[in-house]
């Protein structure tokens, strides 16, 4: 694996769109070519080289390319957009859309990440050491096909809309979450290690929510069917199992009705 290190040389006046910062677009290019890649600030089209200086070199392919971003990039969006492989390490906070529409590879954010983290992710891995905000592993507006694969881990807390319209993949939030987990989901797994204020599994047809803390306002549409032991993120716990959403249409597998599940730590 080869590494390109990009270091911020000046802050944008507004916000900056780093849709070109992906292993796919850096691979097999010279540093001079990478510096010419476009980035928008409002309607102005800059070159990455206007805001960053570059060192190292990329790999021949996305898989073999690692990007390290140094400097405070909390006003920069869309790192890793649609990437298929390779790695990105961001050594500060990042703005919206980290790992948007990601298909493979690995992103690590050392600070906090803003909204739409891993939107419609299909594969790969995102780790945020700080907090996320709203719309983690969500779907684009109107698309019934949300996150379908991959793993998002947020070590801090998150806001609302975790895994909305999810169909596959895993989201782990180690802190607390606000409301709306797995809303409209048709698959996928969300693990919340802290507390959730409410609305877990609303309008869910299929999917699994694991909550290790408390749900302050559980939905009436979920009913308890028993107690089970399950392993979650490397540890085994006892959970109360709830099925639902009873108010939603039901999925069927081989003629049998299947429900979404909420596993609430006992």
């Amino acid at each position, binding site marked *: 694996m080869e590494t390109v290190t990009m270091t911020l040389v000046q802050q944008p006046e507004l916000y900056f769109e780093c849709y070109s910062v992906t292993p796919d677009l850096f691979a097999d290019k010279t540093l001079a070519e990478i510096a010419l890649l476009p980035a928008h600030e409002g309607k102005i089209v800059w070159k990455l080289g206007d805001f960053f200086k570059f060192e190292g070199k990329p790999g021949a392919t996305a898989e073999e390319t690692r990007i390290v971003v140094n400097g405070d990039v909390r006003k920069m969006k869309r790192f890793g957009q649609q990437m298929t492989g390779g790695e990105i390490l961001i050594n500060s906070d990042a703005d919206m859309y980290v790992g948007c529409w990601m298909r493979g590879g690995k992103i690590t954010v050392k600070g906090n990440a803003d909204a739409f983290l891993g939107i419609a992710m299909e594969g790969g891995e995102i780790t945020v050491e700080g907090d996320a905000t709203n719309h983690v592993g969500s779907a684009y507006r109107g698309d019934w096909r949300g996150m379908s694969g991959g793993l998002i881990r947020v070590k801090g807390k998150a806001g609302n809309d975790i895994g909305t319209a999810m169909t596959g993949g895993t989201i782990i939030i180690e802190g607390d979450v606000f409301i709306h987990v797995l809303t409209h989901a048709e698959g996928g797994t969300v693990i919340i290690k802290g507390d959730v204020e409410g609305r877990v599994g609303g309008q869910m047809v299929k999917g699994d929510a694991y909550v290790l803390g408390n749900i302050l306002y559980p939905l009436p549409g979920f009913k308890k069917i028993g107690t089970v032991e399950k392993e979650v993120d490397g540890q085994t716990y006892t959970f109360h199992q709830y099925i639902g*959403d009873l*108010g939603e249409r039901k999925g069927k597998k081989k003629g049998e009705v299947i429900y979404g599940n909420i596993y609430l730590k006992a």
Partner: protein
Amino acid sequence: MPKVIENVGCPYCGCSCDDVRVTVSDDGLKVLEVENVCAIGHEIFKHGSSDHRIRLPRLRQPDGSMKEISYEEAIEWTAQHLHKAKKPLMYGFGSTNCEGQAAAGRVMETAGGMLDNCATICHGPSFLAIFDNGYPSCTLGEVKNRADVIVYWGSNPAHAHPRHMSRYSIFPRGFFTEKGHKKRTIIVIDPRFTDTANVADIHLQVKQGHDYELFNAFRMVVNGHAADLPDEVAGIKKEQILEVSGIMTKARFGTVFFGMGLTHTDGRNHNIDIAISLTRDLNKITKWTIMAMRGHYNIAGPGVVWSWTFGFPYCLDLTKQNYAHMNPGETSSVDMAMRDEVDMFINIGSDAGAHFPIPAVKHLKKHPWVTIDPSINMASEISDLHIPVCICGVDVGGIVYRMDNVPIQFRKVIEPQGLLDDETLLNRIADRLEELKAQEA
């Protein structure tokens, strides 16, 4: 001799009443009398011909005072600043005609900026819900002619849409509803006992912020899981939930009207989303529709016009020139203002000075601020430039979209006396912008 003009449209609320009668002076300059309107509509017509109308643009001077300038100078100022800005935002359109809204689309596409309307602080969550879950609705005449059950959920038309209940929903005698309100059941769901709740047959005093759970409960009943209901949901007892569900499933034709009670409490779009799911569930058994109580007489307009122009109804990012992008939360006016993400602001047919959060206003005020509006309002009083325009329905006509997206053709009742209308003004700004861009190329 004063003239009576009939079939006039009222430019106030989403009822977009078109049966107003206006008597104007012989010289066509003053409104003398207005009939068939509610009190608020009445004010708009009187204000339209008052002596206090601003008739020329005003530019902020270094000492803070405002000085009158010509429309030409105002157009030049606006075009220059739009051209220079990296990410200008034009917001408003609560009170503009569609022709103006179409011209605004042209301006901001040419300028490469952001374009948004009042839905962003109002029924934006309804749009988000429609994106995710569709919108099974109807025109207001269907409600008038067929409905026997009306639900106002998180909505208080007695205050916000004064003639709604009498023209469309509760009191009118329609084709299949000859007995009017006597054969209609009215249900109001609201944490407060409002004036609308006062005329309801049933008032469910839902716990504020927990409408989603109550919708979930109704859906459980409709989908055959009444037995799994807890004793109380969102402050409403199981017996009442069963009673109201029964009324809804036995209705011949029901409509849910909803407002800020759903859009502006926790969950926002999800509250409307689940209401739409419930409406869809009810359509398996009988006939139900749902309708957003749009606030202004043509706030549906920009949603309609920009959908056919750009494919999106609000929160438009036109900075990429070749295509439009939309993602409320990122491209929405208040979010961008709070993050200090725009560097010029045009407030049109609305009052962001009054309606945006103070920190947002403070950020926007750091940059050039233009207000295009017939009236003096909070936005105009902190603007760098205030451009007055005609009032749709008073001194300019045009097409407006009622809350049910029915186009109503408005007329003008008095002469504009030198005032420009939005469409003309905005097209001239766009023309000048094209010139500036061509010069640069």
